[in-house]
């Protein structure tokens, strides 16, 4: 039994190492693809060095890079049940976040979201008038007592045995009750915006694990990228973060990794006084926060370099004055 666990752990660590490699790749691809968007596309003449399968190092124009998204084919039952033996958990290190917003763009690329739609958001929190502001990245909390799942009338959103809360967009009737029930404003609605999903997108369209393609008139949200996790890879926000803010892992194995550092989850929570946001609501989130103590960046760093329209979103907190 213990050998099996050891194997699992070794396996996970190996996957973690894979994650690191992927993190580098992911970042490469994403930073390029995000440069491609909008008006910036014209000046995106950067070249990128890539290693071909033959071991040759080539230089390519970043414009030619495309996000390729492979997924395992699984059945509806598997998508409903979850990955056996796992209990996914995330820890978000508030001391490291400087609102680089790479998690947001990576998530958008991963799920082919239009640029104005965010499943991951970064709030500028200030808990009281005299308190210190800090950046607060927010994913779905995948609560163990999810208010959204409780109210769904058609079983479109559901809780899996591996802890994830997912949405079956083929089932969702768009009543939006889950959106009013979620105390964390996590869920977004497809109001009818068109998204561009590449034709060669090798996915099974009605698989709730990919959340792609999104259906107009249904609810969607952060899904912890279970399609990636199923292949032993980390969710894209984790790998895209330049500061290693997101630790992701399996609570059963008690291991989490941010791509470069793999730690015991329980030890991390213990050492860093981890807490869950709004614990008193009784929703039992699966996302933990590590308080912003000994920060590696001053909070203003995440604000100054932002484009004006994004700055506008934080004006109420008043970092300017």
């Amino acid at each position: 039994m213990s050998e099996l666990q050891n194997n699992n752990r070794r396996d996970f660590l190996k996957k973690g190492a894979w994650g690191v490699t992927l993190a580098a790749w992911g970042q490469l691809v994403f930073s390029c693809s995000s440069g491609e968007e909008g008006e910036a596309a014209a000046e995106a003449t950067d070249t990128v060095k890539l290693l071909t399968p033959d071991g040759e190092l080539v230089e390519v124009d970043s414009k030619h890079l495309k996000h390729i998204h492979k997924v395992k084919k699984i059945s509806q039952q598997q998508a409903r049940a979850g990955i056996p033996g796992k209990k996914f958990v995330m820890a978000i290190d508030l001391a490291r976040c400087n609102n680089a917003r790479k998690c947001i763009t990576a998530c958008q690329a991963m799920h082919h979201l239009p640029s104005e739609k965010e499943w991951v958001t970064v709030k500028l929190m200030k808990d009281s008038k005299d308190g210190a502001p800090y950046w607060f990245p927010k994913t779905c909390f995948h609560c163990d007592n999810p208010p959204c799942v409780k109210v769904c009338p058609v079983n479109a959103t559901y809780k899996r045995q591996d802890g994830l809360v997912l949405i079956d967009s083929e089932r969702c009737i768009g009543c939006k009750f889950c959106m009013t029930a979620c105390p964390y404003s996590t869920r977004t609605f497809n109001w009818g915006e068109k998204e561009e999903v590449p034709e060669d997108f090798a996915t099974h369209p009605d698989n709730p694990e990919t959340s792609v393609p999104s259906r107009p008139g249904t609810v969607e949200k952060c899904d912890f990228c279970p399609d990636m996790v199923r292949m032993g890879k980390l969710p894209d926000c984790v790998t895209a973060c330049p500061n290693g803010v997101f630790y992701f892992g399996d609570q059963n194995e008690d291991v989490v990794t941010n791509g470069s550092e793999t730690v015991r989850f329980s030890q991390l929570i213990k050492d860093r006084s981890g807490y869950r946001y709004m614990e008193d609501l009784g929703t039992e989130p699966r996302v933990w926060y590590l308080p912003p103590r000994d920060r590696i960046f001053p909070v203003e760093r995440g604000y100054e370099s932002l484009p004006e329209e994004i700055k506008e979103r934080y004006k109420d907190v008043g970092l300017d004055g």
Partner: protein
Amino acid sequence: MDISKKQTAILEKFAPYIERFDTKSRVWIGLLLAVIAVGLYALILQIVEGHIVTGMRDNVVWGLYIVNFIFFIGISYGGAILAGILHLFKVPWRRPIMRIAVLTAFISALIGPIFIILCIGRFDRLHFLLIHARLQSPIFWDVVAISTYLAGAVLFMYLLMIKDFAIYRDSEVLDLPPWRKKLYTALALNYQGTESQIKQLAISKNLIALIMIPMVVVVSSVLSWIFGMTLRPGWHSTIFGPYFVLAAIYSGAGSIVILMWIFRKAYQLENYLTDKHFAYMGYILLALGAGYGYFTFSEYLTSWFGSERWDEEVIDKLFSPSEYGWWFLISNVFAIVIPIVVVAFKKLRTPNLVTLAALLMVFGMWIKRYLIVVPTLETPLLPIQDTRPEYIHYSATWVEWALTFAGFATFILFFIIMAKLVTIVTVSDYAEEKK
């Protein structure tokens, strides 16, 4: 079936309204159909373009549609429970009001749920509510509640109409085309006024009236629980059930008064709907208005006094003139102060003024429903931040307004049609007097 002299007189009075559509009602129907057509165009636009054409966005995911849903379904519940109480307690002045009350209950119960369908992103999947039903969801409770209620309301209305259908069938006063005679013959279910039929019908009517009263209390509470069950400030309140029940009865009573006034005017029914009837309905409005005022006061006093952070944020929005302050004030003055003052003073208790008070009150209740839905949705627990600016405040688009007006137009249109099909005063209720 025997038709008394008194009943014949009523039929003669109503014959012109029943037999054919006059020019005036044709014009009305034309106007209403035009409003409904604009609504249908808006609906097609919403289907083709998606919900992007509405003002609803990620924070305020429910808007005018849900407001209208609560409003119409509330009026319906109110009409049904008042008809039930008036019938069961054999209130002597109920006779000219009963038909208006059950028609109000029936017609608004048809219109309310349409707005739910408008609010749903994928109404092509509406049947999932049945085939994939989840017992835990308050929406499923509401589906069960509304469909049960609708069946009850139809049955209630129908049972109160059977005797009248038999009278229309047998009357020689009414000059009706053959298809109408056939329709009444079918609807009268061979009612001939035999002793056993009289007894059975009386028992059935009493039973359904008895059932409707607790049923309305239950279904109206279920409606409130869609809001009460969530962890949202302004919604997560234990008194929401009784608050909604009372508000429903109140707005239903107000609507009945308005319709009484309209029909009295349009059909010259001063001999039937007398000043007394308006005064009595006024007393009901006063009692309900006081109760509604009490609930409103205790709801907002407790959350203001306790001033928990989230509650306070919603209260601030409702109290500050730059947000919803004026609307909150108007809704309370219209729905609490004015009806009580108008009915309390004998000089003011005239049909016209009571009706005006009822009209303002019903409008105030509509605003109140808006103030329940929108400000709470604009106040999530986490700050609205790092989001598109247009997601912060809700502002309904013309599509939502067009469909709202189409809903009201449909309500009036159905009333005009029903008032052609049946007399607005229950003819059969006037039989006993002849004995």
